[in-house]
């Protein structure tokens, strides 16, 4: 168990280092003089002059060689000093922590919807494998998977906001605003996971140990409950780790589409504005959320599978 946590911590550290390095390169690549730009950010473009930018250069040590600046940049990272936004001038850490809360809110709602959708669909398709419901759910899933996430979001907006006027188009002001983005994300996640659930459950139902359980005298329901659920859950949960990658990609797009004030939207916005400290912080936040979710998946697998715990 501790090795699982340690592995993910190492991964998180490597991820932070690589994003930090990339951000540093990004900072150096920005056009124009860095000191001048930061001075302009502080005092406004009208008030900045050569003296002010030289003062900034001396203060921040921008005249040092590149590798020293790089080490200083990493040292700031270690102290969780993520710098100020180049656009708003506010501390980035503070801003991102707000965004993270909104993203988590959206993610939890979407995940809950996805489970409510995928579990019954996947299981019912598995119990009647090859039947009409199975085929229909396959076609629906293939259809949804062949769309970019934002097209699904767009379709929902067109239908529920512009035509039926049931939900607001975009923004963030109460739970009504949560419905469409969460449902769009949930549809995408359920499209994949319902099939994973279906395959995994069919695999278990056709397995020799399921047959043997029936032959021992247990009913289908008893066999599925005692032997099916846990064995089928293992690959489904393990697959969640892969699926979360897709979910976070979806969050970036859905938040942008619905102007949801989350990290994904913040990241896209920052990339558009080339606001490097913001890019760095938002990407790290998404990376940390992702690594954290994967750690939860690891722990869940560990708890489900007794083979992981016993000595061979």
């Amino acid at each position: 168990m501790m090795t699982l946590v340690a592995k993910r911590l190492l991964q998180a550290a490597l991820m932070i280092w690589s994003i930090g390095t990339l951000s540093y390169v990004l900072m150096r690549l920005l056009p124009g003089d860095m000191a001048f730009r930061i001075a302009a950010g502080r005092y406004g473009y009208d008030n900045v002059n050569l003296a002010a930018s030289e003062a900034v250069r001396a203060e921040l040590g921008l005249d040092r060689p590149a590798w020293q600046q790089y080490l200083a940049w990493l040292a700031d990272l270690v102290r969780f000093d993520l710098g100020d936004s180049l656009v708003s001038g506010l501390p980035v850490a503070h801003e991102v922590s707000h965004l993270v809360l909104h993203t988590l809110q959206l993610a939890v709602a979407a995940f809950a919807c996805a489970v409510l959708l995928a579990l019954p669909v996947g299981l019912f398709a598995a119990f009647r494998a090859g039947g009409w419901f199975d085929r229909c759910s396959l076609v629906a899933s293939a259809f949804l998977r062949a769309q970019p996430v934002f097209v699904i979001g767009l379709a929902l907006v067109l239908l529920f906001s512009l035509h039926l006027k049931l939900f607001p188009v975009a923004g963030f002001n109460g739970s009504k605003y949560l419905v469409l983005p969460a449902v769009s994300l949930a549809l995408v996640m359920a499209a994949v996971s319902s099939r994973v659930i279906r395959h995994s459950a069919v695999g278990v139902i056709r397995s020799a140990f399921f047959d043997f359980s029936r032959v021992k005298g247990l009913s289908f329901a008893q066999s599925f409950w005692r032997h099916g659920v846990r064995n089928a859950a293992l690959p489904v949960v393990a697959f969640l780790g892969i699926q979360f990658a897709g979910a976070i990609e979806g969050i970036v797009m859905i938040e942008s589409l619905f102007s949801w004030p989350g990290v994904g939207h913040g990241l896209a916005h920052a990339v558009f504005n080339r606001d490097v400290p913001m890019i760095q912080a938002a990407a790290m936040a998404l990376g940390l959320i992702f690594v954290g979710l994967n750690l939860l998946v690891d722990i869940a697998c560990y708890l489900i599978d007794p083979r992981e715990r016993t000595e061979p």
Partner: protein
Amino acid sequence: MSVLLQVEALSVSANDVTLLEPLSLSLKTGEALTILGETGAGKSLLVQAIMGLLPSPLQARGRVLLDGQDIGRLKPALRARLWGRQLAMLPQEPWHALDPLMPAEQQVAEVYRYVGGLSAPDALERSRQDLAGVGLAGAAERLPGHLSGGMAQRLAFCAATAGGAPIVLADEPTKGLDASRRDQVAALLRRARERGAVLTVTHNIEVARQLGGHILVMRDGRLVEQGEAEELLARPKDGYTRALIGADPQHWPDITPTDGAAREPVLTVRGLHKSRGGRLLFEGLHMTVGRGEIIGISGDSGCGKSSLGDILLGLLPADGGEIRRAPQIARHRYLKLYQDPPAAFAPGIPLGRLFDDLIGLHRLDRRRLAPLLQRLRLDPGLLQRTSVAVSGGELQRLAIARALLLEPLLLFADEPVSRLDPITAREVIALLVQSATEQDCAVLLVSHDLELLRKTCHHVVSLGGRA
């Protein structure tokens, strides 16, 4: 004696192809019925048809009477209610039939609880008694992955019979088990016979002998011969039955090649030892293998026979000791035959091309191939096919041909026939020993069947005993 199970003109077909010809049999209280035959004889289909477990394109015809009721006409749901209560079935591959995530005792206890209607603690208590009764008391809380093949089969036996069914059907219950474990399973089946009746499907003559009772011999979905076990095994009438019985190593003639004069050694081993997973496999092992000598290596599964081979061939480091080969001999003249023939060939590539590769690599004389194939009774047309399109026996003989092309000094044959049917196995072993001897090639023949080694080898080395 009352008739428990009556089968009348039961046949199985798939899309109008008959796989099992109409067959009738009856099973009385206290009786054992054994169906003997090789792979593809339709034996397993019979058991599945009685249970009502035939997979979808297969269809059964005829009548299966249980207490006078034709259960073949029951709806699937009603038929399933007989499982565990009236009909019990032992699985062919116990490891796959056990839930990998559930401790052993739970897999038996749930039957007492859900089929027998006991409370959870009572069910667990009964389960522990059962497991103790088959010598699994110490393994009750283990997961199936931590059980040996024999232990898994005993656990499966307890789980299958916990529902109290008087009739036990066993489909190849000793597949993959070595002699001592095979005998344990046969003993369990004899015990089940005392409580009701047992129908066993097997290709193993020894299991049939130990179970006694009535024997049906089947081949290609057809009944060949039947009779009481002792009589039939002693005086088989049909040619096929005779071949089947003759294929049991006990009945082999001694085919050990005549011992020549003093042989120059091709391999000398001094004080070899090896441990694996904290367990000592062997130590102080001494062995000298002379040219053309046939040496048997015996021992139960897990005793390190395969590891020994890998060490002798230089594929695995030993923990200590000395291995000396004949001087100035190329590496590729010490070779190995594998237990599972398809695993030793590149799949999807015509065998002929693989042979061409080999001939090209060592600049061999291509004309040697045809007589070698003929010697091993192989049709040259087989070379057009890929390894998956050739039977196991043919592929193992092709593997022998491939090795002999290189004129090896030593061939380590790791259980070369344990995956083959008995009649094929006998033929392959005989051809291996004869053709190797003709080339003056030494063979280290590994088998869990001591009888087989006694009939073929100059002398036998026993490993382990600790397993």
